């Protein structure tokens, strides 16, 4: 099952490391990453595979929120099927 993770916030050292570490600890495999900086704002979009996830979804959400606060970014995970339903006919 694939999902899209977005990370948005003011750029600083260690955002990618911090986020990918959380995903790695959760057993989540990253499939693709795209990342840009726009007006000092860091934006990263990742496609990830939740198939091997070893955490409950609630636990993952809580950890991503904590990591987001630590790194000063907003991390959102959205199910790929939701995006497919909304944006693809």
């Amino acid at each position, binding site marked *: 099952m694939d999902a899209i993770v977005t990370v948005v916030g003011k750029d600083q050292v260690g955002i990618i490391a911090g986020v990918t570490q959380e995903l790695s600890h959760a057993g989540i495999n990253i499939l693709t990453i795209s990342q840009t900086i726009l007006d000092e704002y860091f934006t990263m979009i990742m*496609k990830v595979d939740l198939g091997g996830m070893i955490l409950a979804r609630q636990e993952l959400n809580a950890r991503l929120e904590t990591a987001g606060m630590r790194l000063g970014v907003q991390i959102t995970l959205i*199910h790929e099927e*939701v995006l497919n*339903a*909304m944006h693809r006919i």
Partner: protein
Amino acid sequence: MVFTQQEIEESIRMFRSQKLDIRTITMGISLRDCASDSGETARRRIYDKICRLAEKLVVSGEAISLEYGIPIINKRISVTPVAMIAEASGEKNYTAFAKTLDAAAKTVGVNFLGGFSALVQKGYTTGDRALIRSIPQALAETDRVCASVNVGSTSAGINMDAVRQMGFVVKALAHRTADTGGLGCAKLVIFANAVEDNPFMAGAFHGVGEPECVINVGLSGPGVIKSALESVRGESFDVVAETIKKTAFKITRMGELVAREASRRLGVPFGIIDLSLAPTPAVGDSVARIFQELGLEYVGAPGSTAALALLNDAVKKGGIMASSHVGGLSGAFIPVTEDEGMVEAVQAGALSLEKLEAMTCVCSVGLDMIALPGDTPAATISGLIADEAAIGVTNHKTTAVRLIPVPGKKVGEWVEFGGLLGGGPIMAVSRFSSLDFINRGGRIPAPVHSFKN
């Protein structure tokens, strides 16, 4: 990347800041096999069947919500109109049936259960009479049961005996629940052309043509529509209609995804998606604010009926394109106390009961959640019901009335119901009598279906 950044951000914004949600997953359950000549046996069958079929409804809803990251606000149940099931028992008062439904709703953890209902558009059966007579006591003595009565249809006309009686029932129910501002009336809907697959409360029931058990999903998203319209300020109505349609499409597709997943997990067929702009008292979840975004100072200003017609139609078109099984009411709801923007319009003097009635000619429901003075006569309430039923019957659409004559309150005073039901000012109602009109009784014949000029 399969999706553009804009697409991803748009979806995230809808959930995070524009309050897009699945308003309800409603499980429709047929109780037709529960009837018995013993009331006790019937009630035991009803309780057991609801608890068996809906056992996992709440848990599954919460699991889907977490996994897909989509808020699912309510899990609810609708059942076969109880008048049809309780009738065989021969009992005279169906309050015990309502209590059984209430107990089942509490056991499975749903916040409302609809279907304490009777369909009397052409006339009463013995069970219909018993049920309608029981409504004030049944709703006053239960927490989660919702009742509805269908008093008219395009093919049968309007049962004016029922219209007259419902005026008294509304008054009696308000009186019995006077300590909560007549809150019981918020759980009673009087319909014309009631639909059989509506997932929204308080008017949900499981129609007789429905399957054994079914999952219907009600979606809402006035905040999303308003935000979408913010990006086309000043543009023509062609652009407005297109924008609403596209947005409604996206929302409905998301709803269908959830409906199919819920259906799969519960092993119950998927029925319909009902995409309705249903407000809640929360700021940012208002239908009235859409009118303001369209350029009206307040909802109720001249142009409001046209705005609602456009909104309702565009929402339906977007929804129908997105799902093959759109049903229920699917349109825009215009309740008063449940919508902070409507309440503000009433307080500003922009919105009257008469303007609301005009707007119900083009909306998907009717006079909804309107607080009236406590001394409003039963015949006046019946008159309002008759007018609303006439609009529905003549225009081939569903109309509904959910009025609350708040005991002891006068025009302009505030009543607070709390939660999703909100609160609002008591609205003025005509002081001219409808008594002799309502006392006539009988039936208003079905309207002619040709010569439409």
